[in-house]
């Protein structure tokens, strides 16, 4: 966050673009993230949304929570569909059939839609350079279908398809770093955010929308149901994830890294892991290993950030 900006809850957009009455679980931080993202984007927005929790809970036809133009598409296609929206509007504006104005073309997907099945379409859209924002809501598993592992599930987490037990310690692969995948496309704007830090999130989404060309925002969305934590602790666990450096908040503007929040003091990773049902089976060496991995990744980003 810029030091000279004024941040106050009263200055946040008052209009709700995602209305209440949707079917999200108690304490869902993901739907909070959607709400904040839409406040940051404003009225002139078209949203293409992949199948997933956020699509299912917000649109059980004939009901809808959306007060913005919204198109739903199959799991893997939101980046491709928004590419089409952007191209279509561009053509209509060029021909003078629509008045030329800035529209925030936004694609949204969960971690499964982004890091697994839709990665090809996302990569294509980023490479083609559409003027769009891709927002990934990362709750670290396929929560909509009942907590199956995704490639974004962190090392050691137990899910229904990576169950912890005698023969397995849960997810044994490392979390795919989608933020770095997006950075590798050399696009103008990449950022990570978390709804536990709402001003930071709104700021980043605004910047992503203002930047011409593709932007990617990766949002850590705490899922009390899937992480097996009490619903009232969702915001706290978002803070713990950031303060323990499990999920560093940073942005990459035209290749330049900048940490937007430096936790001080950095809290032990154990504080973040303990209390989450999905990590309850972890042994001391496992936690030590996770601590090392997290520390190394954080130091790398700090270094990149300090270089500028």
């Amino acid at each position, binding site marked *: 966050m810029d030091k000279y900006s004024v941040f106050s809850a009263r200055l946040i957009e008052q209009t709700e673009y995602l209305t209440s009455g949707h079917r999200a679980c108690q304490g869902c931080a993901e739907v909070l993230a959607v709400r904040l993202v839409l406040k940051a984007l404003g009225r002139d927005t078209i949203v293409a949304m992949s*199948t997933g929790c956020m699509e299912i809970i917000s649109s059980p036809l004939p009901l809808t929570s959306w007060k913005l133009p919204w198109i*739903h598409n*199959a*799991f*893997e296609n939101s980046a491709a569909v928004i590419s089409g929206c952007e191209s279509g509007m561009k053509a209509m504006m060029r021909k003078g059939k629509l008045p030329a104005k800035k529209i925030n073309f936004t694609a949204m997907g969960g971690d*499964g839609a982004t*890091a*697994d*099945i839709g*990665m090809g379409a996302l990569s294509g859209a980023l490479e083609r350079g559409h003027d769009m924002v891709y927002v990934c809501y990362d709750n670290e598993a*396929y929560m*909509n*279908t*009942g907590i*199956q*592992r995704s*490639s974004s599930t962190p090392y050691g987490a137990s899910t*229904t*398809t*990576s*169950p912890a037990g005698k*023969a*397995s310690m849960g997810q044994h692969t490392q979390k795919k770093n989608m933020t770095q995948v997006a950075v590798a496309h050399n696009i103008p704007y990449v950022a990570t955010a978390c709804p536990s830090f709402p001003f930071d999130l709104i700021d980043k989404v605004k910047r992503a929308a203002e930047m011409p060309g593709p932007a990617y925002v990766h949002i850590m969305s705490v899922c009390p149901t899937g992480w097996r934590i009490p619903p009232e602790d969702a915001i706290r666990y978002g803070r713990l994830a950031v303060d323990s450096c499990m999920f560093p908040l940073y942005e990459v503007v035209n290749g330049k890294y900048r940490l937007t929040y430096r936790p001080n003091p950095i809290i032990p990773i154990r504080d973040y892991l303990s209390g989450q049902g999905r990590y309850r089976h972890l042994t001391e060496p496992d936690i030590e290993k996770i601590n090392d991995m997290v520390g190394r990744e954080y130091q790398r980003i700090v270094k990149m950030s300090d270089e500028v």
Partner: protein
Amino acid sequence: MSKIFISGNHAFAEAALRAGCQCYFGYPITPQNELGEYMADHMRKLDRVFIQSESETAAINMVIGSAATGARVMTSSSSPGVSLKQEGISFLAGFELPAVIVNVMRGGPGLGNIAPSQGDYFQATRGGGHGDYRTPVFAPASVQEIADLTYHAFDVADRYRTPVMMLSDGMMGQMKEPVVFPEPIGKLPDKEWALKGRGDGPSRYICSLILDVVEMERHNWKLVRKYDEIEKNEILYEEYMLDDAEIVVIAYGTTARIAKGAIKRVRKDGVRAGMLRPITLWPFPKKALADLCARIRQFVVFEMSTGQMLEDVQIALAGRADIVFHGRPGGVVPMPVEFARIIYREYQKMTKPQI
């Protein structure tokens, strides 16, 4: 072997384990998630492989790779996911590789919903992918049948070197029933065509790119001869109260169960109704149907779709009897009383003296 109380999705998985399925590749989609979860839980213990892929396309192509090495292999999904698998199924047919694909159908088209439906009949029986091919399709109507037919499907796949489709729906998948499972298979069949590393012999290859049109035609006719064999040997169907029937219901899977309830209901009132339930949807029991129309004038087709199996019934009966269709698409599960009303109505029309 004792009875186990188990859900349909778990029964698919358990039967596959007993049939010697060595690899399972899947991707989450409701209403078949429990199948993959069961595999995740059990495959590792048996030193077999469970992989959750990054997409349905990846899963079916992992199936291709695994089948090419001679492993018994299965994948599962629900309607939208099976649409993504179609390319791979066409390749399996072209390669002549055995595999079992489970489709736990849900409402469509598009993303539809997660309620049970029978809207994928065309896709399954007509070959949803490209090219001239057929896929044997089994449609279980109870959890016991899920267990038996899945076990059988692996044998059919290996015997004919073909992908086999298990066509079920959300209700079958989620429903729990007592089941007696077949004994675990002892020895798996030898596959002399499998890719296993060259060793001292000549190199084998698996390829479906045949640029020479005459060769391609030959390959197509070879497949047809195989499909003829399947049509000759593998047709399964159930006859229900057909001996004295005057009006005959044709239904499969979940709908057939509901229709049984309807038939029991109308029989109490002296309406002589019966049912022919196709268990294999391809090959379709055409001959059994054609034989029936020698003595039966009225057929009723029930489906949880807008009329897909109806076309197979029309082809089989070839205009020799009246067919009435009643369908509930989009995930609505009808009640027996609803079917019973249709049977009453048609029966009355049939027996009413002509003026």
